[in-house]
């Protein structure tokens, strides 16, 4: 029922409100204009009256009452004697000289009575002599006509404005409705489960496009999170099943085949190892989801990356030596960033451990910290076998383990954790080939 809906539209209501406001203002304006026009008209009429009075007075002063009567008759264009004829049209000007008994000495009043309309006169009297009084008046019909015209003109304008407002309101309302409908329909489709639906952009860069883009981005984020969640649950289901199955088999074998304490004890040790592995997977997953929730940002503090990396270097030098890798470092900046020291420690520790565990003995691993343009880049670079460029995206996925590292220990969550921590710090994780080897760079924005 679009007719009813349109009247409920905010834009239509606004247009109606504006129309009412405009009408009120117009009425006030008309009142003012009429008041001014009336005043001006009256002043003009009175000025004409005064001028007539002074002409008559001049005659009177020069040659006496007869001359005054003459002047009046000349002004009225009537013969010097005889009764005043009733004119066909009401005259605009009235002049009368009366004596004290009310006898008309000259003039067109009150004998002139016009039948076609009631008349209103504006005028005054002036005393000529002790026995004669002059009355001068003018018809206000012309003023009334002007007033009528003004009223008419304003009436049409007001009508036009009202029509325009209502029409505009309706059109605007329809346009609003169309946009709101587009967004509502998309939202309804998303609610119904079509998560890939997006609001079409009109490409005008207006406020509707901005709103649509914001909603689309929100939907993107939500569906990415959802996808992530689905990915995690399926990964969890799949990847936890494997070690759980192994654990179960081990326990079953122990129950069926074990013959002595030594067998049982070995089986239990293995089972404990499996359990620990499972638990570390769980805590890694939990940690990733906590980091991705992003609440940790509240406690960000300045962290000197150089100091942190030096600490990491000192921590890992012995273990690198023990497993036949060579660890070195090159820090070219001492800039601090805002971050979470504990998480950043884990980030670099994971990257270094990855380099230690997924490379052959004899590999050289270098920690690098450089400031470039508006960025700070911390990298862990090895000259090992590297990762195929097509796998760069996949290595940060949960539980992904390169085919060559199937046998290496670990739960495949290391780089996912790294990616999550980097994202929390507004940093990018950049994987590039190091010819040979792999360079994992964490690109932090320079603190402003």
């Amino acid at each position: 029922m679009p007719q009813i809906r349109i009247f409920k539209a905010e834009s239509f209501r606004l247009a109606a409100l504006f129309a009412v406001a405009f009408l009120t203002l117009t009425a006030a304006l008309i009142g003012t204009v009429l008041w001014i026009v009336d005043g001006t008209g009256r002043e003009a009429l009175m000025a004409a009256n005064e001028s007539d009075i002074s002409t008559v007075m001049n005659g009177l002063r020069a040659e006496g009452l007869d001359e005054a009567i003459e002047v009046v008759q000349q002004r009225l264009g009537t013969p010097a004697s005889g009764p005043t004829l009733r004119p066909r049209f009401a005259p605009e000007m009235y002049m009368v000289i009366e004596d004290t008994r009310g006898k008309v000495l000259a003039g067109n009043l009150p004998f002139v009575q016009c039948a076609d309309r009631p008349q209103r006169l504006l005028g005054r009297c002036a005393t000529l002599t002790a026995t004669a009084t002059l009355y001068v008046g003018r018809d206000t019909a012309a003023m009334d006509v002007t007033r009528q015209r003004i009223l008419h003109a304003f009436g049409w304008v007001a009508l036009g404005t009202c029509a325009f407002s209502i029409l505009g309101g309706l059109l605007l309302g329809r346009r609003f409705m169309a946009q709101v409908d587009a967004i509502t329909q998309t939202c309804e489709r998303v609610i119904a489960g079509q998560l890939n639906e997006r609001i079409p952009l009109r490409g005008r860069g207006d406020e509707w496009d901005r709103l649509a883009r914001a909603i689309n981005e929100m939907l993107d984020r939500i569906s990415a999170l959802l996808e992530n969640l689905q990915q995690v649950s399926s990964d969890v289901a799949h990847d936890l099943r494997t070690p759980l199955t192994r654990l179960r088999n081990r326990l079953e074998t122990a129950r069926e085949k074990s013959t002595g304490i030594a067998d049982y004890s070995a089986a239990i040790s293995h089972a404990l190892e499996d359990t620990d592995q499972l638990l570390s997977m769980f805590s890694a997953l939990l940690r990733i989801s906590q980091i991705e929730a992003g609440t940790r940002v509240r406690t960000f503090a300045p962290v000197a990356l150089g100091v942190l990396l030096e600490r990491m270097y000192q921590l890992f030098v012995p273990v690198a030596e023990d497993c036949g890798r060579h660890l070195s470092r090159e820090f070219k900046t001492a800039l601090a960033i805002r971050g979470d020291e504990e998480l950043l420690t884990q980030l670099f520790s994971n990257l270094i451990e990855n380099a230690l565990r997924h490379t052959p003995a004899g590999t050289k691993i270098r920690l690098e910290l450089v400031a470039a343009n508006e960025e700070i880049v911390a990298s862990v670079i090895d000259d090992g076998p590297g990762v195929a460029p097509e796998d760069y995206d996949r290595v940060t996925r949960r539980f992904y383990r390169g085919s060559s590292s199937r046998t290496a220990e670990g739960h495949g969550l290391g780089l996912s954790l790294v990616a999550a921590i980097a994202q929390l710090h507004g940093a990018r994780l950049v994987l590039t080939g190091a010819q040979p080897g792999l360079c994992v760079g964490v690109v932090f924005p320079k603190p402003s």
Partner: protein
Amino acid sequence: MRLLLTEDDAELAKSLIERFREQGYEVVHVGDGIAGLREATCHDFDAIIVDRMLPGMDGLELVKAVRLRKATPIIYLTTMSGIDDRVRGLEAGGDDYLIKPFAFEELLARIRVMTRRQAPGAARLFAGSIEMDLVLRTVTRRGQPVELLPQEFRLLEYLVRNVDRAVTRKMLLENVWDIHFDPHTSVVESHISRLRARLNANGGSDAIQTVRGTGYRLLAAN
């Protein structure tokens, strides 16, 4: 040694009590927070083990309330592994934080370290033939100087302060390197083996004993 255990999981409590008794501890067990607070304030214990999520009274509240009256060492034993949970727990007045599931040896080692007599801020530490000067940052063994890197010095200091007590890898990571996650490489082992080599450079018996399944112990008789 008397321990107060506040734990609402009856089965876990039972197995803990049993294992603590084997180690010669006397354990008082309560299943809820209010009883825990009553026990903790009315009687003296050497250490208190607190679950974060207790019926009656939240573990965090319990620790805050106990701290108002007593300085008994408190360790949390909890499934709350959230990133901020540890910080919040320690800020409330706890001394240590252990996340379930855990190895009993880990808990035992932490309680032993917690309940040791806190030496006043001495400038020199001794452990058998090892002598550490914390101000000059020097170490001697049998009077012979031992050159140590700063990290090795901190590692040795922690071992010496807990002489004759087993300390776990986790405890070393937390206290020496401030690392609160499990590295996948044998970081601690590598550092220990270097420290060992330096301490034993001038001959003599191995001062650092490896405790199987737990961690390490610096022997007083070295």
